[in-house]
């Protein structure tokens, strides 16, 4: 495989594609590991981070399964933007691609997104392989130069960037025989507003970095650093004014005017109405938390009572034990 691509096409990848591929892989992997790790499959099914691997899959795996699918998007001039993806049925051992399924899916997607074309295909694995060329060639009748998006599902905590690579195919002459080889290309991530919100949401669910173990701590840490910055800025202004008073720094009236107008805005929030509103909202929140706790407790109690009744049944064959209620 050559290591540079100079065709001048710029690629833009949407996070939706990455999430789709990882979801597909996770589902297939977890479905193969059913009995010994029931709990781990449920946890794997809910994992939807960008570059996640199902954690319970290590039990009886010889080799992680490869998933295949199609990526669709728009090509405008030299910019290729990959918006979405869907799965395909492909058997690597027989190298047969389910054409009818592909065509049906294409048709369905065409109805909803008339502008999207099949731009290429995706798969998972650590590196592009020779056998991938067959799939690549199979897709060449739909798109004359398809893209190959490869996701590496192995989690590497030291890795900083996304384990996604995009390959193009180029015709090179090797040993006198023209061959198609995969050429790596760079890409940028482009997000739509909806994607940004969901990625943001997921990123905040589990705070990164070991210092903040809970979400509350993470949020507080954010506020803490913001206030710290404000503090340092105020300190700078303070020292400036002190210097001006002592006479070390020549008085600059326009700056003083700005500072005085700034200080006039303090205290920023202090009025009776604000206090009332704040207390009201505080009380509401406390009340709702209390109510939720109540509901939780009563449901746990209910379960406990049910269990008691089941255990100490009035009509038990052993007799001698009475029901609880």
């Amino acid at each position, binding site marked *: 495989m050559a290591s540079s691509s100079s065709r001048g096409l710029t690629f833009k990848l949407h996070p939706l594609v990455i999430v789709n591929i990882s979801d597909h892989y996770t589902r297939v992997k977890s479905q193969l590991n059913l009995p010994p790790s029931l709990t781990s499959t449920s946890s794997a099914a809910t994992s939807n981070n960008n570059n996640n691997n199902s954690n319970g899959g290590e039990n009886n795996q010889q080799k992680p399964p490869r998933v295949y699918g199609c990526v669709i998007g728009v090509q405008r001039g030299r910019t290729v933007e990959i918006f979405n993806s869907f799965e395909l049925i492909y058997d690597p051992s027989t190298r047969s691609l389910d054409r009818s399924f592909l065509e049906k899916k294409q048709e369905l997607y065409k109805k909803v997104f008339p502008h999207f074309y099949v731009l290429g295909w995706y798969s998972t694995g650590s590196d592009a392989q020779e056998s991938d060329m067959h799939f690549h060639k199979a897709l060449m009748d739909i798109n004359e130069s398809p893209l190959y998006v490869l996701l590496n599902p192995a989690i590497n905590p030291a890795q900083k960037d996304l384990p996604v690579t995009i390959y193009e195919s180029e015709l090179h002459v090797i040993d006198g025989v023209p061959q198609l080889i995969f050429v790596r290309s760079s890409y940028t991530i482009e997000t739509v507003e909806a994607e940004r919100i969901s990625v943001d949401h997921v990123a905040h669910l589990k705070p990164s970095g070991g210092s903040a*173990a809970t979400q509350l701590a993470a949020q507080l*840490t954010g506020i803490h650093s913001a206030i710290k910055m404000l503090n340092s800025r105020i300190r700078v202004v303070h020292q400036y004014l002190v210097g001006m*008073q002592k006479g070390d720094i020549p008085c600059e009236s326009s700056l003083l005017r700005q500072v005085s107008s700034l200080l006039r805005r303090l205290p920023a929030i202090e009025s009776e109405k604000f206090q009332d509103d704040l207390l009201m909202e505080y009380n509401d929140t406390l009340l709702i938390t209390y109510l939720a706790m109540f509901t939780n407790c009563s449901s746990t109690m209910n379960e406990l009572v049910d269990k008691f009744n089941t255990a100490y049944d009035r009509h038990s064959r052993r007799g001698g034990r009475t029901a609880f209620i």
Partner: protein
Amino acid sequence: MDIEQNQAELIDNFVKQASAQKGTALGSVILEATSHPSLFAFSEILALPTVAELEGTENSVYLKVLQLFAHGTWSDYKSNCSSLPQLVPDQVLKLKQLTVLTLAETNKVLPYDELMMELDVTNVRELEDFLINECMYAGIVRGKLDQLRRCFEIQFAAGRDLRPGQLGSMIQTLSNWLGTSDNLLVSIQEEIKWADTMSELDKKHRKEVEDRVEEVKKSVSVKLQTVSRLKLSSEGSKISTLNLVE
């Protein structure tokens, strides 16, 4: 602050003009400066040596006018009407704008009655027009007019020229602000620690409960094995699914 940027050029202009001239000619410069619609800062001009020379001469009235515009209000003008020259309407307008700025220094919420008194305006409609057109559109004040409670809530007001004593009070306010934010930082830090310890405790507690459940399950399954086949009725399976009863 955009007002300061707008004014910076004008101030430079006037400073150049004022330092080039003396005496009566200076008076006309001052007149022009105080009637200019976008100029609200006069301390640079006041600081010029040529202007300070006016003190004591027959042109000292101009100096007094400049000082009035730098630090005073409309009521100051009314009380000292005799010693000051007649102001042209532009200057009157500017002085009233500066009065609003001074009032904004002390309170964030200015009642209409006080404003009307200070600005010599008789009805609310005129007052509101003045506030909207002259103050808010000029950009020196930003706020909300509350007609029901008859007050003007100020969110932002441009700074006026500083009186000499004001620097000390500004430094005091800044150090108070610093102190409050430091305290806030410390308390947030404590909250973070509290959140962390509570989550640790919770995890430990959860783990302990699960360990106990495991133990109980093991002991119950041992009991089941010693019980005879007949007794392995539905109850037996129910007991083995109990969590915390034992």
